[in-house]
């Protein structure tokens, strides 16, 4: 199979770029800008020359206008020559729905100005139309667009998938010349995979192959992203535009004692620090990672500094209504806010005005993300992006110091595009069948053109066809089938009158996450009181008796009913689960490995405190006070136990209420996730009891009644790892949850059907049942396999975990088993914050019998 070549784009000279611009466009450009930006020099002539191109540039690098400049230039030329036809010339796709402002600035405004210029010069030109089509576009607007095609269509991936299935639209989409994919770095996921198939279908509808232009923030590896953009067998050039601005970054600790994170005195210090930073800048943007923390910061800033921030502070996170978010974005642009606090939602895209400082509260967990966030400051040309990390505990301190170092060295963590997603494939096969009758081979050939499906096997493809054709249903229930497939003629077509409606109303890949109301059930005096809400993902992990914190108060979980969780208030027990975990970003592998390496470097020098602190200062370029804190932290661990590093995996064993094995595994959370479940399974299998596993970025633990460290460690090998892991995840909540998402994407559960939409709670109940039915049918049901793949490859990082196991077997990483009387300093955060899951091995009947014996024992003993 031809893969296509990917090469570096040579930047044009100023004269070359000026030369390709139409006089009108040229005049307009220089009336607005002093000169071309490096991004424009790097990319515009290539787009003009109809080359597929991936443009990677830091935020504020004028990417969007770069892409539009070449296209506007072409269209203006046509419009002046009166050769503009009623068809779509260019499609611009962005993952953001809130596009209107960006489009106004980069498209409508320039068009208006060019048109005005032409008028002034007495040049007659045709009107160039821009059409915006998103999920919010009204039916009337859509109909208008279908009658008179926009020359430039601005849309989202989901809306584009709908458009190519709409006969009215297909007519004017047959000769699209440019496709721009913006923010492609945010689409290295199922949404992006979905888009690649949409683009292949778009090509197939047309008579010419459009040029593909991808716009990305700093990302790695570029070659992979380029192939993802253009598909199999097509060439692509890469314009990798480096930041010409200097990064101004620094690290601050909020108090002298980082261990007592939540003490009021320290809180006060942190808010004083925040206030000081905000007051000495014009507009500050604070990233907090979680929605909870976002709300908290806004609340406390107001509390600690009464009146100072009234009307000048805004929160922005994904569970806020869209309208509310727009309001904040508008205020930011208008310069009305002094400070905006966000979880992660302001990371992407749209220009948010004159921010001159970005504060990262807690680690952003990856280099690319850190760069993206800090790039939000100094969006204006020539301003240096300024960012400050504020760390809240000692793990955070080391992590942020390492991140800063990697940022200045330009070492970006790598992303991986999911491949062969069978749920996304199901959706598209259905969509294709709605359009016309296909030959199976022809359909498969089209699918394989997408980079994400280049290796799709015949078996996988036909298993999806079987699923959609209802081969898995009982005979008298053929209502279930969505397509028909005739194995004799190899033809595939749609089935059912509602096919198109079902497709249109259930398209997309973003799983719906519900929010569950928390209601007090006891004490009776407060019964029915609503105290807040938690994520559905969070709720799924709660078991009866768990204690969690919500809005600063502790509650004990009792049970759920529908979309409500019933809890007991007035709890004195310690929390068993942190409420923000489900939102936590996973630490990148590269950053974790660098942390481990750093620990090693410090342990080598640990004996001589002064020179070691000096080394740390120099290594990170941080002040002596912070370097000392890092030294102390690692010294404490060295004194108490053993310091884990890149060559030593320390496994600590201790007994409290239960028996614990703590693995200080520094390989990023996705690897930890995989390893923890394998070792958890080993422990479960050895004693035929369920085992609890806890995971965070710095390691994982397994806990049970009784563990035998040596046997557990010896049980997992690189040979049996995959097999063990497959067994281990089979009964976990994680798989259940992913299966629900996959079932919804593959249209087994329709979110919208016959005019009714289904709540997430309903979807969840149904999917649990579906999963058990599917299992009865076949362990290899395609959608179940997809859920497993998602857990293995997207949620976890199984290939890298396997590499780690091989390194252990080869002796490159040594396991050190240590007995400790209680949790070691490095284990404290893991113990307190880790997310836990259960490795279920003991079957229901066995558990029932055991519980019965125990119960009878208790009763007889008590009697």
């Amino acid at each position, binding site marked *: 199979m031809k893969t296509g070549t990917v090469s570096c784009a040579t930047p044009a000279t100023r004269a070359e770029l000026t030369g390709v611009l139409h006089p009108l466009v040229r005049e307009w450009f220089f009336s607005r800008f002093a000169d071309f930006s490096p991004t424009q020099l790097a990319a515009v002539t290539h787009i003009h020359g109809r080359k597929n191109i991936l443009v990677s540039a830091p935020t504020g690098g004028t990417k969007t206008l770069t892409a539009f400049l070449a296209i506007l230039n072409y269209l203006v030329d046509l419009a002046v020559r009166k050769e503009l036809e009623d068809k779509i010339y260019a499609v611009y796709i962005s993952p953001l729905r809130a596009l209107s402002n960006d489009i106004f600035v980069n498209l409508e405004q320039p068009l208006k100005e060019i048109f005005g210029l032409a008028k002034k010069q007495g040049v007659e030109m045709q009107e160039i139309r821009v059409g915006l089509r998103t999920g919010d576009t009204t039916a009337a607007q859509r109909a208008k667009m279908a009658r008179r095609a926009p020359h430039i269509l601005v849309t989202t991936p989901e809306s584009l998938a709908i458009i190519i299935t709409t006969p009215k639209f297909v007519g004017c989409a047959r000769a699209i010349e440019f496709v721009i994919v913006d923010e492609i770095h945010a689409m290295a996921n199922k949404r992006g995979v979905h888009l690649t198939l949409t683009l292949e279908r778009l090509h197939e509808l047309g008579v010419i192959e459009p040029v593909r232009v991808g716009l990305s923030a700093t990302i790695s590896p570029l070659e992979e992203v380029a192939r993802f953009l253009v598909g199999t067998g097509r060439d692509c050039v890469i314009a990798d535009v480096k930041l010409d601005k200097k990064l101004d970054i620094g690290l601050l600790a909020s108090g002298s004692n980082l261990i007592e994170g939540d003490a009021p005195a320290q809180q006060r210090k942190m808010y004083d620090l925040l206030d000081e930073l905000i007051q000495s800048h014009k507009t500050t943007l604070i990233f907090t990672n979680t929605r909870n923390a976002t709300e908290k910061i806004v609340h406390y800033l107001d509390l600690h500094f009464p009146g100072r921030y009234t009307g000048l502070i805004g929160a922005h996170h994904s569970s806020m209504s869209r309208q509310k978010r727009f309001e904040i974005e508008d205020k930011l642009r208008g310069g009305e806010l002094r400070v905006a606090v966000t979880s992660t939602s302001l990371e992407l895209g749209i220009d948010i005005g004159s921010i001159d400082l970005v504060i990262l509260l807690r680690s952003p967990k990856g280099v690319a993300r850190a760069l993206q966030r800090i790039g939000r400051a100094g969006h204006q040309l020539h301003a240096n992006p300024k960012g400050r990390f504020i760390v809240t505990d000692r793990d955070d301190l080391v992590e942020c110091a390492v991140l800063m170092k990697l940022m200045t060295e330009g070492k970006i963590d790598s992303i991986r595009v999911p491949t062969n997603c069978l749920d996304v494939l199901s959706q598209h096969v259905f969509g294709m069948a709605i359009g016309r009758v296909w030959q199976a081979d022809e359909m498969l050939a089209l699918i394989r053109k997408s980079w994400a499906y280049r290796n799709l096997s015949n078996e996988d493809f036909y298993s999806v066809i079987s699923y959609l054709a209802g081969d898995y249903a*009982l005979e008298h229930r053929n209502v279930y089938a969505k397509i028909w497939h005739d194995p004799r003629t190899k033809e595939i077509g749609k089935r059912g009158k509602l096919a198109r409606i079902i497709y249109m109303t259930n398209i997309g890949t973003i799983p719906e996450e519900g929010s569950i109301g928390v209601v007090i059930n006891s004490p009776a005096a407060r019964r029915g009181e609503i105290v807040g809400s938690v994520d559905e993902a969070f709720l799924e992990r709660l078991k009866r008796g768990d204690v969690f914190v919500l809005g600063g108060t502790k509650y004990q979980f009792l049970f759920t009913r529908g979309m409500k969780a019933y809890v007991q208030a007035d709890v004195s027990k310690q929390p068993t689960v942190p409420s923000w975990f489900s939102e936590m970003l996973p630490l990148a592998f590269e950053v974790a490995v660098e942390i481990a390496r750093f620990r090693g470097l410090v342990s080598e020098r640990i004996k001589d405190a002064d020179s070691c602190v000096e080394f740390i200062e120099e290594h990170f370029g941080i002040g002596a006070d912070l370097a000392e804190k890092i030294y102390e932290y690692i010294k404490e661990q060295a004194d108490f136990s053993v310091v884990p590093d890149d060559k030593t995996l320390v496994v600590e064993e201790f007994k409290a209420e239960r028996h614990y094995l703590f693995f200080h595994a520094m390989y990023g959370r996705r690897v930890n996730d995989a390893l923890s479940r394998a070792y958890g399974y080993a422990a479960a299998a050895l004693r035929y009891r369920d085992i609890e596993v806890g995971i965070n970025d710095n390691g994982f633990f397994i806990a049970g009644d009784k563990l035998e460290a040596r046997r557990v460690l010896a049980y997992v090998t690189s040979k049996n790892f995959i097999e063990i892991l497959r067994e281990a995840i089979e009964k976990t909540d994680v798989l259940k949850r992913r299966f629900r998402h996959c079932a919804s994407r593959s249209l087994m559960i329709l979110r919208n059907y016959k005019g009714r939409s289904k709540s997430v709670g309903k979807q969840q109940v149904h999917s649990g049942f579906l999963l058990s039915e599917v299992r009865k*049918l076949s362990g290899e049901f395609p959608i179940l396999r997809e859920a497993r793949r998602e857990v293995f490859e997207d949620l976890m990082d199984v290939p890298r975990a396997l590499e780690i196991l091989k390194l252990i077997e080869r002796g490159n990483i040594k396991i050190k088993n240590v007995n400790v009387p209680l949790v070691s300093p490095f284990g404290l955060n893991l113990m307190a914050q880790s997310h836990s899951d259960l490795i279920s091995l003991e079957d229901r009947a066995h558990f*029932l019998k055991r519980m019965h014996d125990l119960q009878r024992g208790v009763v007889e003993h008590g009697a």
Partner: protein
Amino acid sequence: MAHEFIGRGLLITEGKTKILAVADLHMGYDGALRKAGVFVPGGGVFGQTMTDLKEIFEMVGKVDIVVLLGDVKHAFGTVLPDERWEILSLLDYLLEKSGEIVVVKGNHDVLLGPIVHERGVKIRDYWVWGSYCFLHGDRDFSAIYQRRIKKWVVGHAHPAIELMDGTKHERYKCFLCGFLWGREIIVVPSLFSKSEGVDVLTRELGLAWPLDVMRCCVYITNKNGDLLNFGLVKNIKQGIK
């Protein structure tokens, strides 16, 4: 006259007469799911219910009377595609295995009458046999307070109990037996396989009478047909190791 717990059914024997009572079958549930946009591959709830019934009959053999304790049908104001087919298939199977079918009306059984009538089966509000009275459990009737009636056999509640050992928790369908106003109430678990039922520790039973769950006895049958007596609900310890 004696009763025993067989799978999820209650078997009553007197002399040579055998009566089997099962509860809450919710036929047509798969169709209801499809109507809601959930496409269940394979045999679905119906397939599982029939499998469970067959397992019970393998243990008890043929019986004289089968009592369906209500909620035979799932959908309220409508007859869904497949629903009639499922109910008739069920009745045909039960007629093979028994001499007579008695159906008491459940709250879901609004339109059940005409369908079961096709096999000559009548629907009643309650049915008395010896000292036993069979009814759904959602409604009260004055006639069930007759002196000679000592036991009420009901469905409706879908009773189940969640057992925990501190790490693992699992829910099991169970029989509940308790006393109220001098009578014994036997709550039969549902045959409905979609869910494991309602945890009696955290949810109310929803019966027409104020039966004190805490003072009920819990019985669970396991796969090989063994009966496990868990004693009174109030004595069940959670989180024991």
